């Protein structure tokens, strides 16, 4: 099947009643979950996984992609209304969004966010359509050494780009791979680190890790802030934008949709980095940079365009290489594997309807975000009034049932609690959890491709040097963590001198 036919079959799927219904449900659920403080796209997708078990894989993926960008948009709503970003990707939105809301222009800020998200999302989906096939065709020449190098690059890149210390992020990644070595080793059949517990033979399910490290760990933070209610809600004001506002938005939207997409494609960067870089570049380019931080329309448009563009960009490596570049796409990959889909260069030729269906449904999803969510915002915002104690109990119960419904084993629930505690301690001591989950998902594949590469070369490590693509990626991986560590060391030395 050629590309055109593939796209057509994708269009057919995306515009079927089922397709539209699930995109809508996904976007709506994502917006609702993303709006809740602390719950971001990773938790949103992880929570939705049990619901997709018996679904058609394509529909399930359409649903989860909707949840993903719905959650990113939902996060900006709580950033604007409460100054409480649900996720790190929308922190930059609160810089100008919240001052606008305080001025009584919350409606306008939300409209700007919705339009900018739509624009960023749409442009980047077009870019995704253009680039994913190209990358897929390049990726077909990838063998085990290249895949291994790519995964190492993904892990070091996410470690060096996550907030805070690179060393701590790398430790987090190593712990993630260690966690995945528990269970029967697929190649030799050896049981590793199971302590003779039969429940551990098949390893730890990724949903246990994802829900524990994210949803449950966030619950601990919610318990501490349980008395903070959103009392400072004011009237939303009009949603209408003036011609001047539109003019103000157009520049940032044009630039950030492309920049955001590029940053989204790169392993490790993702929505957070894209939104901050978007905000900073627009502030530098602005004629009146002093307006930034005080409720500038551009200050909302820039990060919102960038984070949504990055969201679609992140699908490029996931769908075309089968390698997630961020924590969220890692969870998405886990969800795909549960559904028996192996993303990678062959996905486009073997399952064109799935590949293109998801991409085309992103257009539809972005449209839903704009035309459906916008008028619904005043009502959706009421979810923020759910009392925290009730929200906490419901999130806990939902996480438990999510895990129980895959294994029907209460042992996994105890493990979930343990990972919840680990996730909370990691946050407390500033170890970023995203590298952990990415490493957990990639760990098994990494070991496998390392083994295949070593078997190919008859145990000769030089195979990673003789292959130029693999070598290039390994050098990039090495630089991606040594440079920030070296810079940190130098700035420390300067400070203490």
């Amino acid at each position, binding site marked *: 099947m050629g590309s055109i036919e593939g796209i057509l079959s994708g269009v057919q799927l995306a515009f079927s009643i089922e397709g539209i219904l699930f995109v809508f449900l996904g976007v709506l659920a994502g917006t609702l979950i993303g709006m809740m403080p602390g719950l971001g796209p990773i938790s949103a997708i992880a929570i939705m996984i*049990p*619901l997709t*078990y*018996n679904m058609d894989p394509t529909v399930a993926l359409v649903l989860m992609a909707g949840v993903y960008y719905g959650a990113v948009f939902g996060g900006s709503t709580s950033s604007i209304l409460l100054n409480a970003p649900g996720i790190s990707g929308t922190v930059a939105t609160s810089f100008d969004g919240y001052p606008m809301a305080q001025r009584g222009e919350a409606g306008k800020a939300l409209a700007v966010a919705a339009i900018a998200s739509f624009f960023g999302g749409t442009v980047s989906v077009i870019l995704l359509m253009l680039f994913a096939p190209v990358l897929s065709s390049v990726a077909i020449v990838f063998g085990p050494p290249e895949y291994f190098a790519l995964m190492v690059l993904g892990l070091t890149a996410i470690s060096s780009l996550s907030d805070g*210390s690179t*060393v*701590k992020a*790398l*430790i987090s990644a*190593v*712990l993630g*791979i*260690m966690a995945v*070595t528990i269970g029967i*080793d697929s*190649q*030799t059949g*050896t049981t*590793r*680190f199971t302590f003779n517990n039969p429940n551990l033979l098949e390893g730890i399910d990724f949903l246990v890790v994802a829900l524990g490290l994210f949803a449950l760990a966030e*619950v*601990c933070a919610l*318990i*501490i802030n*349980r*008395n903070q209610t959103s009392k400072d809600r004011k009237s939303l004001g009009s949603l209408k934008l003036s011609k001047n506002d539109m003019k103000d938005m157009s520049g940032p939207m044009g630039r950030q949709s492309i920049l955001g997409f590029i940053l989204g494609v790169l392993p490790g960067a993702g929505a957070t980095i894209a939104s901050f870089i978007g905000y900073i570049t627009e502030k530098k380019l602005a004629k009146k940079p002093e307006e930034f931080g005080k409720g500038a329309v551009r200050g909302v448009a820039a990060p919102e365009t960038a984070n949504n563009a990055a969201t679609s960009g992140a699908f490029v490596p996931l769908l075309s290489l089968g390698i997630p570049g961020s924590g969220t796409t890692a969870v998405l990959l886990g969800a795909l594997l549960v559904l028996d889909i192996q993303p990678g260069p062959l996905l486009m030729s073997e399952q064109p309807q799935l590949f293109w269906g998801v991409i085309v449904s992103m257009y539809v999803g972005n449209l839903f975000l704009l035309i459906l969510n916008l008028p619904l915002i005043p009502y959706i915002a009421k979810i923020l009034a759910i*009392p*925290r*104690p*009730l929200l*906490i*109990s*419901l999130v*806990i*119960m*939902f996480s*438990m*049932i999510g895990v*129980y*419904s895959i294994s029907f084993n*209460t042992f996994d*629930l*105890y493990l979930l*609690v343990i990972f919840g*505690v680990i996730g909370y301690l990691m946050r*407390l*001591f*500033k170890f970023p959890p995203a590298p952990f989950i990415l490493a957990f998902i990639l760990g098994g594949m990494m*070991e496998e491709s*390392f*083994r295949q590469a*070593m*078997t190919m070369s*008859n*145990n000769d490590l030089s195979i990673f040097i003789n292959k130029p693509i693999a070598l290039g990626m390994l050098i990039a991986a090495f630089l991606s963590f040594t440079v920030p*560590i070296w810079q*940190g060391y130098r700035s*420390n030395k300067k400070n*203490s001198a």
Partner: protein
Amino acid sequence: MLKPVHRKISLLLIALAIFYLYLAYQLPSFSNSVINASTMPKILGFGLIALSLFLFFTPEQETKEEKEKRHIPKADLIKIAGVVLMILAYIFFLERLGFILVSFLFIYFCSYFLGYTKHSINFLVSILFPAILYSAFTMLLGISLPSGIIPF
């Protein structure tokens, strides 16, 4: 010397790495496979030691504010411990008493414990939410959750 908290953490991590390596060295090796089951774990164990040592010698960077952020008031710790105990009870009774009943008790008492005092709303949510979820899972998704002592 151990005052900055990251040094204590790095020592804990080194201890974990040593324990992990000890277990990795116990793994059987096969002469016919190029990469043994213990190869990757050994790399990981030594990698963790190296990274932890690096963390140990990293100078203190925490601001006072960040330190204070880490301090959790005793009242909150009690609440977290209470919720964890309730979660453990939930897991213990899930298969024994059934999903709907245990979830009802959990949502109601957990919300109450965390300070929610609108009993009628709490009661309604704790009944409706598990019931809807139970029907969705069993009827729509074909996943049967434990019915326990409730006969449907």
